[in-house]
């Protein structure tokens, strides 16, 4: 059975207020930035938790506890490109544990307006960063095979944030 740990335990109990205060501090707006400059704040990576053979684990981009989250603050025209791995790999030439990213697994949310942009993380997505900034959410699924060999699996997702000043 797939079991998960980490986030919920961390948020519960006496530490919750401290964590909330810390997150509020970290999320505080940055000083005004020059046109065409963006600060990137990676908040959280994808959290698949326990993976069991033959049992896919799907993370929705709407799952606040497990989706990947990146915040952007600043101004300019932004293009996002995701380098998505085919899967988690156990060693350089080891077995692959497939990862899948669907056409609606990407979201750009604009807190200032409440607008949400759905995108396919396999393709670039562009938008103009509004004064309230934007938050990027990424979901995905891990699909261990029924005969997935044991091992230490790892992978990396790279988010390319391309910021252009459209007024020069």
């Amino acid at each position: 059975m797939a079991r998960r740990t980490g986030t919920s335990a961390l948020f519960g109990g006496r530490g919750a207020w401290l964590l909330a205060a810390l997150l509020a501090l970290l999320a505080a707006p940055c000083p005004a930035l020059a046109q065409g400059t963006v600060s990137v704040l990676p908040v959280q990576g994808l959290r698949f938790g326990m993976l069991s053979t033959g049992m896919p684990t799907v993370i929705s981009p709407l799952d606040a506890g497990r989706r990947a989250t990146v915040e952007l603050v600043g101004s300019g025209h932004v293009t996002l490109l995701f380098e998505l791995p085919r899967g988690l790999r156990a060693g350089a030439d080891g077995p692959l544990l497939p990862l899948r990213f669907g056409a609606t697994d990407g979201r750009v949310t604009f807190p200032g307006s409440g607008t949400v942009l759905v995108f396919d993380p396999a393709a670039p997505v562009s938008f103009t960063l509004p004064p309230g900034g934007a938050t990027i959410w990424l979901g995905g699924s891990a699909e261990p095979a029924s005969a997935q060999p044991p091992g230490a699996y790892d992978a990396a997702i790279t988010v390319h944030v391309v910021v252009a000043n459209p007024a020069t």
Partner: protein
Amino acid sequence: MARSTVRTLFSARTLLAALALLAGVAAPAHAVSVSPTALYIDSRTRTGVLTLYNPGTLPEEITVDFAYGYPQSDSAGNVSVATTREPAAGEPSAMAWMRAFPRRLLLQPGQRQVVRVLVEPPAELADGEYWARVLISSRGGQPPIEQTQGDVRLQLNVQTTLVMAANYRKGDLRTGVDVTAASARRNADGVQLQVDLSRNGNAAFLGRMRAELLDARENVVATLYDDVAVYRTMRRRLTFAVPAAATGAMTVRIHIDTEREDLPPGGALPAAPIDQRIPVQ
């Protein structure tokens, strides 16, 4: 089988460690600071200078590269800068003539580094402005966010690329802009101004537009500013929030000039200002 280990995070020590880790990795990755905001290189010096600065607390790996592109707008007035490394024949591209020294560098926290951009244009180049974009990519300013659960480790890395104008100018340059169409319409959001601009001359028009919403008594009830870069054509849409007290016939007054304090000296070429009035429909 991929396994994961259940970890207990209730203890105070672990909680503090987790918070410290969170604080460490969640600091904003400020893109490397670059000045000036754009390069306008003339044919006498054929050299531009960028100053890079790492405001972060970790070293940044920097790569400097070039592409071709310029601001373009869609039918809704959204502006973007699409770049390509294979510009079409006939495009006024300076991309292939530009070299950066150094092209790769490691910028330590708090360190500044000068990058020189040298231009080697072909002989017999006609007077005019030739366009490129300098791409400054940085990574490593912070460790990746790493989620490790049991034997599964997934990293989230961020690479930031700043795209800036790097234009080469030769000889006699002229620029200006024409308003080819303009409209102002009242809608549910307020008053939407749409202005279509077309450049004239042989160089990009870099300027700003001030748009004022006037009430029936010619009082200014709202003002908007917009920096514009018109390389060929450009559509801009701005929406005024209309004060509740504003009633009666309204007019939008626009003023376009080349006062651009954000650009380096000489960046915006001089051009005659434009004034126009557009009745709100």
